[in-house]
């Protein structure tokens, strides 16, 4: 019996591949910013390590976590995209990604999303939006903390 289309869209091969073999998995040695995020109701967890370079760009981003395929794949795909990004690019991508998974708002840079657009299937599963955005919320928090604590980081990175 064939699987329903919306389920196939949710669990595309690329997404399943990222959840099975997460990229940039692991920790970064200090000095860096470490944040922990979770979805208490479903038990998804993520630990994110963020290192900014002298210009305030994302030098390195790594994560560890446990949770559903969507949450882990999303974290992996985000980490791939974010390496070397400026903070303004990162913030743009965070906003665009939220639009991808919720369907609310407008995407400002379709090209920058790349394979992240595959997570569009989440739109049909509203309860999974929080899974898909877990890592992204953690990154937002890490960026805020990094800017708050690192005197070396430029106050207005963009």
């Amino acid at each position, binding site marked *: 019996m064939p699987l*329903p289309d919306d*389920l196939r869209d949710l*669990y595309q091969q690329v997404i399943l591949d990222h959840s099975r073999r997460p990229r940039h998995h692991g920790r970064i040695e200090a000095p860096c910013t470490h944040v922990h995020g979770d979805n208490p109701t479903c*038990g998804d967890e993520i630990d994110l390590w963020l290192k900014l370079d002298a210009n305030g760009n994302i030098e390195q981003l790594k994560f560890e976590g446990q*949770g559903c*395929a*969507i949450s882990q794949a999303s974290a992996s795909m985000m980490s791939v995209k974010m390496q070397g990004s400026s903070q303004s690019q990162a913030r743009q991508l965070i906003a665009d990604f939220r639009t991808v998974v919720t369907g609310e708002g407008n995407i400002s840079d379709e090209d920058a999303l790349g394979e992240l657009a595959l997570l569009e299937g989440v739109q049909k599963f509203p309860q999974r939006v929080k899974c898909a955005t877990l890592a992204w919320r953690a990154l937002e928090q890490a960026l805020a903390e990094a800017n708050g604590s690192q005197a070396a980081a430029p106050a207005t990175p963009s």
Partner: protein
Amino acid sequence: MIDLSQLRQDFPILHQQVGGEPLIYFDNAASSQKPRSVIDALVRYYERDNANVHRGLHELSNRATAQFEAARSRVARFIGAASEREIIFTRGTTESINLVAHAMAEKWGPEDAIVVSGMEHHSNLVPWQMAAQRSGASLWHVPVLDDSSLDLGVLKQHLSTGRVRLLSCVHVSNSLGSINPVPEICDMAREAGALSLIDGAQAVGHFPVDVAKLGCDFYAFSGHKMCAPTGIGVLWGRSRVLENLPPWQGGGEMIESVTLERSTYKEAPARFEAGTPDIAGVIGLGAAVDYLERIGLPAIEAHGTALTQRAVEGLVELPGLRLLGPPPGKPRAALASFTLQCAHTHDLVEFANTRGLALRGGHHCTQPLMKRFKAAGSSRASFYFYNTADEVDAMLRILREAINFFS
């Protein structure tokens, strides 16, 4: 034996498709479905007899009161209570436990201790944490052993301190399916001078429960897991214990006389039932008790055991599946929790849903227990008497399909 084909006709909700497939409802430990007779009792009450209870002198109030109190008597008989005055109606197991925790905590101080087990639902853990904080009492735990049973040696140590005032423990674990040795545990508590409360949310309606034989002082359960409506539950308390329990909520119904300065309170159960109760819910609960008794609790238990055994035998054959709970051969309630190596529980439950199969995924409100067994969460299939062996087989096929998909 249960005549399933006949009995499934009693449950209108079972005859529908989900995702183009026949619904397989295996989330009974979260909430059971309701037979036509219970739904009809609610409709009949609202269409013919609706009025407030205990105060009116008019016909409708008399009818409502008579049905309300008749339900109390049926519930009392159903669980072996010595008297219907031992039956307090609540919103559910959670409120029943909160009632006891709140009322008891007033008497406790820093020298006292409460004991709970490590396999409690949050509803039988958090109220005691709050009571401990309020009263200064200590909160101690009984660890869960690898075979999903309780470490009664540790319980014995706790009790031997002489400080334990109350032991609260689940009858059937909603996550593991363990059936705890309640009579033994209650004996131990009583010998140490401690009261005992048993959370029977997963027990009542699944097998015969007789509070007199169990030997506990309080027994809490919910209606909605045993064919009754949501929002109605029961606290049974031993008369002698209820006599000494202060009220927890104040209001109408629970008082004898009121002046502007102070009030005197009625005896149990009225003392613990402030405000207008869920009259329809109580009447629905009475109808559910009638329905379950017509089928017979021993038959319900036997059917649940057979389905669970079939499920467990099939589950352990699946690649990368880890079964939680008592090892095969040990007593197990009508549920099976498991984890899959290849898929997180939410991915599996999402997959199952597209096949019409309702499973529960997550921590089942037992986060400490999931941590204890190093599971981020688990998937749970829980059965009731209207489920069939064919449905169990269909679940096993769907799980195989899911494993192929996610591997």
